[in-house]
Each structure stands twice: as C-alpha cells, then as structure tokens.
C-alpha cells in the first residue's frame, strides 16, 4: 500500500508543478513506483513539464466519469517504466470532479504505486479540496516572498482543519546571494513564521528553465543544483536523514554575530 502526497501552495507560480515533476522523477529514479496526478483541471501543465504532452489520450475526468479504465488513462514516462502520469482535463472545469471521486481514485492508485503525488491547483476552492481529498500527507511549496508565505500560512491552516496535520514545507527559488545581503527572508525566518517542519530548500536555478524547455525534469541533470535539492527531498520522503545542502544554511554575518552575543534572532 502506497502513500498519497499532495503538493500544494495556495499561491500560483511558486513551483508546485515543477516540484511534483522533479520529486516524482527522483523517486522513480530510486526504483520506487510512482504516479503523478495532475488535478489542475482546465490549466494542466504537469504533462508539458514531464515532456509527455503528445501521449495524452484520456484524462482525469474521463476516468472519474467512467469513459475509460484507469489503466488506459495512465501515461507511462519516457525514462522510467514505473513512473506514470494521469493528466488533468484541459477543456472541462473544476467542478467536473468531486472530492469523493478523488478519494476513490487515490485509494485505487495507492494499491499499485509506492507514491501517488498529487499536483494541486492554485487557490483554496474546489480544486484544492479535490486535490487534498485522498491525501495522506501534504507538502506546502512557498517562495521567500510575502505573498507566497502568507498564502502558505492560509493553506497550512486549511490542511489542519481538513485533518491533514503536520504538512512539510519546501522553500523554492531561494537566492543565497540575496539572503546574504539581508534582502531575502532566510530559511529560519520562514520556518519561524509558519511554525512547520522543513522538507527541503531549492535554490533559484537556470537549469530549471532549461530542463522545463526540454520537458526533462532537472533531477536527471547531475549538474543541476535545484535537481540535487529535489533528489534530497525525495530521499527525505523515503525516510532517509539527509542534511541540508551548504547553500541551504547560509546565514548573514550579522545573525551569526548576534548569536555569538547571545541575542536570539
């Protein structure tokens, strides 16, 4: 019996889909059976990020409406046999699926896969409720910006209300240079504010743009720093104790100085 993990954020554009694609591919590269479930009906993108957009025949709504069998709609990944994608529908709207159907689907997928990763749409409406309906765990993605952290806080509250407690945080697109000069919130700032455990930190990285252009997740590029960060997160999901990468623990000189002086920062 596998595990259903929803990847959510509240705010759009913080990297939910990229995160789903990369963690899923990383888990598959470590011989786990993984299925990626795109629940962003009407605005699907996980297919293009994975480079699988040309293989779509059926979609999520076809499955929930019984137009096809679940196996027919699953698209096998180009690189890993045991990695599959269930794409969202593009021409229907979010109300085409309900939470009960999503719960059932997740239960079904869990039987055949080690990990079911659910890519959640932005927002807190029906699409969000659908995405979390069958989840066992949640990952909240944020970036070091006020708007993203605020929405993450709201999402954490809603996850707790939905009895999906102790979600873990992924801080995406952090820029160590700006953290160093005090122009970007650092890891501790965000952990303090959100009072939540950290799953990992991903640096801003050009290789993400390049790999997305090609439809090849960055975790497959051994030279990609973001890819390395995602591989680390995947290992933590598998229960390994992986320390943060060196850029992940950068501190400003002043905060080190304050600690030395006994001030709490």
């Amino acid at each position, binding site marked *: 019996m596998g595990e259903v993990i929803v990847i959510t954020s509240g705010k759009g554009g913080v990297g939910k889909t990229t995160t789903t694609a990369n963690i899923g591919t990383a888990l598959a590269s470590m011989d786990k059976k993984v299925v990626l479930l795109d629940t962003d009906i009407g605005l699907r993108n996980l297919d293009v990020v994975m480079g699988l957009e040309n293989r779509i025949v059926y979609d999520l709504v076809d499955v929930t409406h019984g137009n096809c069998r679940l196996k027919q709609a699953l698209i096998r990944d180009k690189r890993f046999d045991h990695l599959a994608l269930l794409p969202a529908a593009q021409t229907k709207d979010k109300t085409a699926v309900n939470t009960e159907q999503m719960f059932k689907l997740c239960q079904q997928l869990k039987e055949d896969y080690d990990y079911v990763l659910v890519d959640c749409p932005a927002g807190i409406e029906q699409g969000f409720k659908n995405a979390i309906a069958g989840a066992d765990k949640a990952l909240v993605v944020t970036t070091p910006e006020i708007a993203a952290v605020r929405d993450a806080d709201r999402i954490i*509250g809603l996850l707790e209300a939905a009895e999906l407690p102790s979600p873990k945080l992924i801080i995406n697109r952090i820029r160590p240079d700006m*953290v160093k000069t*005090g*122009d970007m*919130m650092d890891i501790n700032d965000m952990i303090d504010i959100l009072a939540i455990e950290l799953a990992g930190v991903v640096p801003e990285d050009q290789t993400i743009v390049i790999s997305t252009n090609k439809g090849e997740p960055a975790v497959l590029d051994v030279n990609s720093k973001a890819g390395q960060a995602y591989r680390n997160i995947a290992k933590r999901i598998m229960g390994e104790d992986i320390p943060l990468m060196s850029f992940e623990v950068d501190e400003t000189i*002043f905060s080190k100085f304050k600690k030395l002086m006994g001030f709490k920062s």
Partner: protein
Amino acid sequence: MDLFSKLLKREASLSKNVAKERLRLVLVHDRTTISPQLLENLKEDLIKVISNYMEIDSGETEVTLNSDDNSVALSASIPVIKINRLSSR
C-alpha cells in the same frame, strides 16, 4: 552613533526584516478568521481558570477576537455571579 547602534539600525532597515514584520502583522489578522474551534477551547479554559476564583455564568460568557487596522484584541464578557472571599488569596 556608535558602531553597534549603526549595525542595529542597518538590521532593522534590511528589506527582509521589513518583510518579516509586515508578514507578522498580516498573519495575525489572517489567522483570526481561521478557527472558531480554537476560540471555543480558549473560552472553556478561561471559564475553568476563572471558576477557581469566582462563580461566573458560563452560559453567558462570550469570547471574541476583534481586529481593526493596527491591532487585534481578545475580548471576553464574563458575567460574575458571586466572588468567593475565601479563595481571594
């Protein structure tokens, strides 16, 4: 201005600290709307504690969070029935 206060001033004006302070304020407001259950639990705890000191009308007790632009205040309206002299240590 000595070096230390200069450093302190620089620290406060760092844009990340401005962001943190703004976030802190905005989240105080956001979080007030999240859980009526939490407020109910708080009310029950309050009643328990206050009952050690005086007899109150727990049915009429009201606990609310009120917010305006700059602050959030917790208000409680707790009708007192009887104050027990012996327990006023």
